[in-house]
């Protein structure tokens, strides 16, 4: 956490209530330094970090970043491959919707948004109730139209060059032809 946040103490007490021990860092660099330390996770001074909240700016333009320890989870957040099979209109998938909730990401988001609203309005009774709803988006379809067009249009780029190319051959051979003709003429005179 960055100590510049105005709701830092409240956030610490909330996380403490969830059973997390918290630690305040001066900047992101200090977190990076700790994570890269050879004794990270090995002794009491270098405890492993589960997640972090970086308060980028306070009132009036609140901004924050969430940092997660994703060790061992790399690749688990990848979506389905769209390269081999064209995707179809999928049915509602509860697992996809519940994944961010179960991971705790939306919980922290919600806590932070509530704290920001309370800090901004000065009213401690304000409450934001999140509503989750699935959003439908168009299925991805591989459209090779531009590839087909490109393959056909390169002919239009190449064929005009044929004129210059043939003209060069013609000019060079005509010059050669004239030279050969003159040479033969000279030889015939002699």
């Amino acid at each position, binding site marked *: 956490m960055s100590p510049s946040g105005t709701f830092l103490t409240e956030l610490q007490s909330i996380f403490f209530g969830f059973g997390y021990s918290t630690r305040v860092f001066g900047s992101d660099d200090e977190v990076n330094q700790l994570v890269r330390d050879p004794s990270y996770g090995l002794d009491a001074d270098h405890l492993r970090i589960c997640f972090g909240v970086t308060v980028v700016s306070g009132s009036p333009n609140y901004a924050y970043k969430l940092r997660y320890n994703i060790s061992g989870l790399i690749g688990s957040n990848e979506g389905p491959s769209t390269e081999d099979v064209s995707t179809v209109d999928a049915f509602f998938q509860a697992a996809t919707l519940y994944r961010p909730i179960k991971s705790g990401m939306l919980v922290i988001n919600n806590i932070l948004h509530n704290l920001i609203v309370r800090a901004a309005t000065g009213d401690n009774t304000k409450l934001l109730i999140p509503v989750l709803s699935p959003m439908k988006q168009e299925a991805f379809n591989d459209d*090779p139209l531009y*590839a087909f067009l490109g*393959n056909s249009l390169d*002919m239009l*780029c*190449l064929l*005009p*060059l*044929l004129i*210059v*190319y*043939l003209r*060069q*051959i*013609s000019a*060079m*051979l*005509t010059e*050669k*032809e004239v*030279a*050969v003709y003159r040479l033969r003429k000279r030889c015939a005179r002699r």
Partner: protein
Amino acid sequence: MKIMGMTGWSYYLTWLMRYLIVYVVIHAISAFILFKAFKVIAYEVVLITFLLFDLVLVVQAFFVQIFFTKAKIGIIVGLLFFCVQFVVNFVVRNSDNPTY
């Protein structure tokens, strides 16, 4: 011209320069049109790609004219040579590889 003392280098260099100027003019314009149509690609990249192909064409013309003394036959063979290469490229082309 060799009798007059002209070396092979200067002979071919003059032809190269003459037709390279023609190609540069054509492709400076066409590269500009493509650059305006496809805004992601840099103008220099399109121009250099075209110019490299132009160099190949000039050298190919040098190659074809060596075997002939008659302009008409040379033109026909040059045209066929160009078309055969185009057909080979068309047959071998792999649409999965866009850089081909």
